Every structure is written in structure tokens, then in C-alpha cells.
């Protein structure tokens, strides 16, 4: 299965570059291990293609309204010497979208939509088994949110049978961009229609995890991007289910988001220990699964300050589906029975059908044992509700709406987007 990544905007490109880098680092560490050749070959086939001079080229397309970020990312990839981006699979402009969703959607998006589709077609022709698209973008700015939304919609129209997952980075709740809530609301509303699944990473949570993992309290965007890329690698690297089938993107989506009204996914990864502390830590499977389950019950993505009084019967986090990827020695014997507890699922989901797991005996990166849980649950709803409320507060005063209407956007579109998101919040709250 080959996955084509679309790196949209500054955040998307930076996360994408780190994602491929993390992949290659993991594969390098696995080279010395036994029975790793087939695993490496599957991983490389999934994310890379052999280009000219037998160099590994990422199956990726980089798009940004500014050329600086894309060229930076390309250079960093080349510097590693292990992989690179295909030189003709990039699209950049001269002027950014100015943190304006409408500029990104109506202006830049309209101009480069066809070119992006051509790049996608070229990349698609290299795939023997196409698994789906994975778009990386932030929704607080202009390019990632606006142009990213436009590209997602175009992809869905051009390839209606393909699988499409959007990895979204939500801005900080107290962010720097004044219109970030507008951008987020508009993006979320459009993407919930075009995309098959939305995997959400909230900057607030990622920052806390990065603080835990880092040696210093000061956290850079690079650290946060690394956290996101590690969690993506943990979820998307090859693994097999109990019946021997691969963890294809289609299988993920079939299990996680079959209901079209519920598309929001959250990622939880354990262990969350710094590189320095790994050598002094021991992990066992029951502890990892128990902590992951508790994180789910308490709507937390951080492995700190978990409230152990919350049980499945009194948990406020109803979940529609869970998918766990277990990596490390002895992964086949892990007991994941607690995730099948019927109390955490709605009654209309058949017993046992809400949970699925994939295993891989080879460890991931520096972790001897690791678990990565993708959940379709109520965790992101509180943050979404806050975002919508703040955006509505501004819209009620018609604050900054002229920034959007000057690009041809109507006020009705705002109202439609608010309504859609209210509907999404209502759907999740009624589970």
C-alpha cells in the first residue's frame, strides 16, 4: 500500500519533512535486527519510491504560497543523504496567504488547484497499490487552512473512490493570530464534508507532551512537530492484524469512521518519556494498555495527572471506535480486553466491533514497547466548542469579516459553517 502525502502550508511541510525523517531513522535502527528486511521493504514501498540514481524519494507533494519553507524542507531532506523529495513535486508561490482562509481558498487555491492535481496524478502513476492520501496542514493560518481545504475538495472530486485522511494541527487556544478561530471554523466545516477522517493534534496538548519529552522547559515548534511526526509514524508504519492482513489506510477508515457524521480522530501514544529517561525506564504491556485506556476515559492525550477514579461506567468520553497499534516484542500476547468494554461505546455498535488492533514485533524508534491508539471519541469536542464559540462571538460583531468578504466570500458561508459545526458538536454530544 502506498500513501501519498500532501504537505500544505508551512506547518504541513515542516511536519511532513520530520515525518519522513523519523521514518528513515526508525528503519535505520531496525536494519541490524533479524527478520526486518521484509518490514523495511514494506515500509519503504509505502512511503518512498526509488527515483533516479536509485535514491529514495518520498511519495509527497509540497505546496506552499511561499517558496522559502518548501526549499528549506527540500534542502534538509537532501542533507540527510538517505532520502529526498522529488524535485518536480513541489509548488510554491511568491506571496503568502496572510493568515487569511479566504485568500488561501478563493485566491491561491483557485490558481493552483489544477497544478496540484497534475502533481498528484504524476505521483499516483508511480503506485502499484495506492492506499490513499494523507494531507498535513494547520488550520489556524491561511495557506494550510484555505488552500489546504480547496485542495482537499479538489482531490475528493477528482478521486472519489480514494481514501483521504487530513492530519490537522489546531492552533493554541490563546494563539497569536487574531482570526485563527475563523480560519479553523471555516476549515473544519469544509473538511468535514470533503475528507474521510480528520486526525486532530491540538497545539496545547502537543506542547505539554513536548515539554515532558524535552530536556528543557522551552519548547520550539520543531519539538512539537517531532511529537506529531512520531505519533504519525507509530500509527502509519506497517503492522498486521490477528488474521494476517495489513494495516492499510482503507482498513483504518473502515473501522474508525464508517459513520459519515463522526469523523474526528484523536491520537494517544505511549510511552511519553524523554530520550534521556528511556534507558532507565522499563515498560510492560499491562501497564501500557492500562494507561492508554485511562487516557481514553479521562479524555487526555498526555500521560500525566490521570484521574484514576474515572471508570468506564462514569466516563464522560463516549467512543465510537478505537484502533490500537502495538509495537515491540511480545505484542501478540497483549491483552486488550478492556478496550472492548461495552460501557464506553454507544449501544448501536455491536459488541466487540468497536475495537481493532494491529501488531508489529519490531520496536519503534527508541521504545522497546509502544502503543498508539487512534480513537473516534468525544475528546476534541470541548476544544471545538470553544473555538466555535469564540469565532461566533467575533462574527456576531462582524469583526474582521471584511478580510474574508473582499475575496468573494459571503457572510452566509460563515453561518453555514457555524451550523455545520454545531451539528457535528451536537452529534458527538448525543452519543
Amino acid at each position, binding site marked *: 500500500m502506498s500513501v501519498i502525502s500532501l504537505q500544505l502550508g508551512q506547518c504541513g511541510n515542516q511536519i511532513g519533512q520530520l515525518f519522513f525523517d523519523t521514518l528513515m531513522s526508525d528503519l535505520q535502527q531496525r536494519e541490524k535486527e533479524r527478520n526486518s528486511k521484509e518490514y523495511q521493504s514494506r515500509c519503504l514501498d509505502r512511503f518512498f519510491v526509488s527515483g533516479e540514481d536509485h535514491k529514495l524519494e518520498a511519495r509527497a507533494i509540497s505546496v506552499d504560497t511561499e517558496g522559502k519553507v518548501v526549499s528549506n524542507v527540500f534542502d534538509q531532506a537532501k542533507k540527510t543523504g538517505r532520502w529526498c523529495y522529488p524535485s518536480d513535486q513541489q509548488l510554491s508561490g511568491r506571496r503568502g496567504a496572510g493568515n487569511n482562509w479566504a485568500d488561501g481558498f478563493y485566491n491561491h487555491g483557485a490558481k493552483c488547484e489544477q497544478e496540484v492535481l497534475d502533481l498528484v496524478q504524476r505521483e499516483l502513476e508511480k503506485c*502499484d*497499490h*495506492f*492506499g490513499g492520501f494523507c494531507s498535513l496542514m494547520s488550520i489556524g493560518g491561511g495557506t494550510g487552512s484555505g488552500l489546504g481545504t480547496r485542495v482537499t475538495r479538489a482531490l475528493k472530486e477528482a478521486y472519489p*473512490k*480514494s*481514501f483521504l485522511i487530513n492530519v490537522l494541527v489546531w492552533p493554541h487556544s490563546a494563539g497569536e493570530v487574531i482570526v485563527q478561530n475563523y480560519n479553523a471554523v471555516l476549515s473544519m466545516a469544509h473538511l468535514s464534508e470533503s475528507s*474521510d477522517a480528520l486526525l486532530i493534534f491540538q497545539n496545547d496538548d502537543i506542547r505539554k507532551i513536548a515539554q515532558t519529552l524535552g530536556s528543557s522547559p522551552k519548547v520550539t515548534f520543531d519539538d512539537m512537530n517531532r511529537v506529531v511526526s512520531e505519533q504519525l509514524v507509530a500509527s502509519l508504519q506497517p503492522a498486521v492484524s490477528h*488474521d494476517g492482513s495489513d494495516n*492499510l489506510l*482503507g*482498513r483504518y*477508515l*473502515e473501522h474508525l*469512521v*464508517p*459513520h*459519515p*457524521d463522526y469523523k474526528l480522530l484523536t491520537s494517544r501514544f505511549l510511552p511519553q518519556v524523554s530520550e534521556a529517561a528511556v534507558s532507565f525506564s522499563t515498560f510492560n504491556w499491562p501497564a501500557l494498555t492500562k494507561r492508554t485506556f485511562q487516557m481514553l476515559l479521562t479524555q487526555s492525550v498526555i500521560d500525566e495527572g490521570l484521574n484514576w477514579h474515572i471508570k468506564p461506567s462514569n466516563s464522560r468520553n463516549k467512543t465510537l471506535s478505537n484502533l490500537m497499534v502495538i509495537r515491540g516484542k511480545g505484542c501478540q500476547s497483549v491483552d486488550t480486553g478492556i478496550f472492548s468494554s461495552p460501557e464506553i461505546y*454507544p*449501544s*448501536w*455498535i*455491536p*459488541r*466487540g*466491533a468497536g475495537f481493532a488492533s494491529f501488531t508489529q514485533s519490531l520496536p519503534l524508534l527508541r521504545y522497546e514497547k509502544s502503543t498508539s491508539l487512534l480513537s473516534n471519541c468525544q475528546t476534541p469536542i470541548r476544544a471545538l466548542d470553544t473555538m466555535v464559540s469564540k469565532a461566533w462571538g467575533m462574527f456576531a460583531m462582524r469583526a474582521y469579516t471584511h478580510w474574508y468578504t473582499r475575496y468573494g466570500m459571503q457572510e452566509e458561508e460563515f453561518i453555514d459553517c457555524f451550523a455545520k459545526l454545531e451539528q457535528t458538536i451536537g452529534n458527538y454530544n448525543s452519543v
Partner: protein
Amino acid sequence: MASQPVKVSSSKMRLAIGTLCQFLSLSGFSPISPETLRQAKFNKREAVGPLLSLLAELIDFSTATQCAKSPQFNREETVYVVHSGMLSRHFQRRQFYLCLDIDNSTCHSSRELLIAIGWLICTESLLKQMLFSKETSSLRSFPDVSHKLQERKIYMINTREDMEAPSSFEQYLNGLVWNMGKCRLATKQWYWKEQEIVKLAHKIHVATQGVSLAKNRVCLSPADVTILRYKDKLEKHLHTVEKENRRLQMFFQWLEKEEIFWQWMESVIDAENSERIQNEDPAARSQVDDSYPFDDYSKTLADLSSQLDTTLKEVTQRMQFYDKSLMEKSVPSGETGNPLDVRFEFVPKRVKDHIPKSIVHSQSDWSPVGGIKDIEEEILILSKRLSSLEAKLLEQRDAFSCSCTEMLASIDGVVSIPPILCNQR
């Protein structure tokens, strides 16, 4: 002189029956031993179970699905499938349906099941169909993924059973949409799998151009490449080919021994007949012969026949007399029948007054005039008058018959008898 059937040795019969059993087993049907068929000939109870299952599978195979052993029937379903399947195929053996007990999901006669199986195999040429059917062949798909399909099927059945009864319409709807979403996404996956198969097959064809393991191909197929690359798959494939080869050999053997098998089946039916005769009460048979009053009935019939002849004679005589009297009445004695001498006879209930006078006839109203010369002139005149009178009479007859018809239409119980005309002119 009629030819006597050739007596076949029991060993050849055993071989023929064994060939059939082996062929059915290699084609994927429930394994059945020759001993079971022998037991069925003597109507043993032990043979009922295996033969019932086999018959259900054969019926299922011969329907549109053409799939051996695809559904696993339970006991109730088996008997029902057998009953309805044979009925729909117009199997008219009454004893078969009488021995099928649908209420208790069983059958009381293994012999009837055996006869039904033989009939089905013969009429629908099932063995030939099995030979050419892809579903019964071991080489139907490579690699064989039927076990994965079966696992998926069991998973879906268990999932359906585990679903709680919805407490509200909204929950029911959500469950349906959830299921539909699963189907939609699974269909998408299947679409991309098909795309991959086509692309890889094309790659293999291009890479192996000029090398082939089959006469009608110029390159290797994906199955060939899989076998060549993986040793364990090669061994498995060899095993499958050997099994298919054995099946073909069994079929050829069957073609040679088929006649012997049907002779044995005839002996099964003979066994059934002799059993039935033995079971009948001989006293009851003779009672029927002695007490039945055939003689009395034949005497009665003879009497009735002679009575009928006598009656017919009498009726004929009366008819003749009646005809004669009718003729005498209409034509007085000594006179020849004159076509002009017509008389309409009425069988009246009342006499009508408006009978035209011209109808009433009289011969005496006319008399000759003068001597011989005069007689000749008279004859001339009379003949002229005769012809005019004839014409007039004809006209009046027609007119009268018309008016009579009109008149009689309104009278009840009156019948007009038209004049008896002699064709003597």
C-alpha cells in the same frame, strides 16, 4: 425371444458404487461410503442421515448457485430443502414424499433417499455438471482464499447477533448508517485491490514475455510466478493438481461402470417391490377374488342389452307406422298425389277466423264443358287455366306461409305443419 439381463458380479458392482462415492467426495460433497449405499438398499436406518445430507447438497448444487457445500443446513432446513427441491423437479414417487417427515425433520426410508439420489443424478446429469463446474474443482482459485471468506462471514454473523435491540428509532438509524458506511468503505478497498491486481499482472506479463508454462500463453501468469517463487505454495499446488487428477480419473472410471451401477439401482427397486409383496396379506387378496359378484353384473348387463334391443325395435316400428298413417291421411286412396292438392293442417288450440279463403281447396268446383272438338278446345283452355292457377297457387302459398308464420308467432301451443310435397312432376 427376449434377451436375458447379464448377471454382473458383486465385485464389479462394488467397484461401480465405490467410484461414484469417491467422485462425489473429491468434488467436495459430504463423504459417503459404499457401505451406506448398500445399507440403503435394505432400507437400514443408519443410512438415512448421510443420504439426506448428500441429497440436500446435490439439490443445492443443481440450483443456480452451483456451489457444493456452500450453505451448512441444519436438520430442519435439510428435510425442507429436500422436500421442496424434489417437488420442484417433478419427482413423482409418492412413497418418497410419504416417508419424509417434515415435522420431525427426518426421513423414514433410506431406500427412498437412494432412489431419489439416483433419479436426480440421472435426470440432471449432475456428475457431468460437477466435472465442468468451477465451484467443485480444487483448482477454482489460486491462491485459495475461501477460508478468509468463511472467517469474514462468521464475523459478520457474530456481529449481527451481538447487536443489541435498538431502544429508539434514532439508534436503529445510526446502526444502519454505521453498517452501510462499513460496506461503502469495504467496497472502496475492493476497488483498489482490483486495480492493484491488474497493474501487477501487467507488470508480470511484461517482465516474463516469451516465457510460458501453458500453450496458449506467451508469458507467465501471476499464479505461475507465485508458484515458482514460493516453494511451499508449489507443494500445495501440486497436491491440488493431484487431487483434481484423481477426480478426473474417477469420472472416466464412472463412465465405464455407469451401466453396472444402474443395474444395481434396478435391483434396489426390485428389492422394494419384493418387500412390498411379502408384506401384503394373502388372505385379503383371495377374498377379493371369490366374493366379488362379477357373474351377477355380467348377467345384468346382458339383460339390459337385450331390453335395449327390444325397445329400439318397438320404437322403430311405431315410427314407421306413424309415418305411414301420416302419409295416408295426407293423400286419399285412389288418387295420385297432385302437387296442387295441398292442405295445411293446423293443430289448433283455437280456430282462427282470418284464414285466407284462397287456401281452402276443392276439386269439385271445376267441371269440363262441350264435345270432342270442344273437348280439345276445352283441354287447351283448361291447360291454360291450369298453368295460371298453378302460378296463382304458388303465389298464394307463399303469401299464406308468410302470414301463417306471423300469426303463429303470437299463438302459444300451435304448430304449423307444412304440406307434404311430392316431387313427382
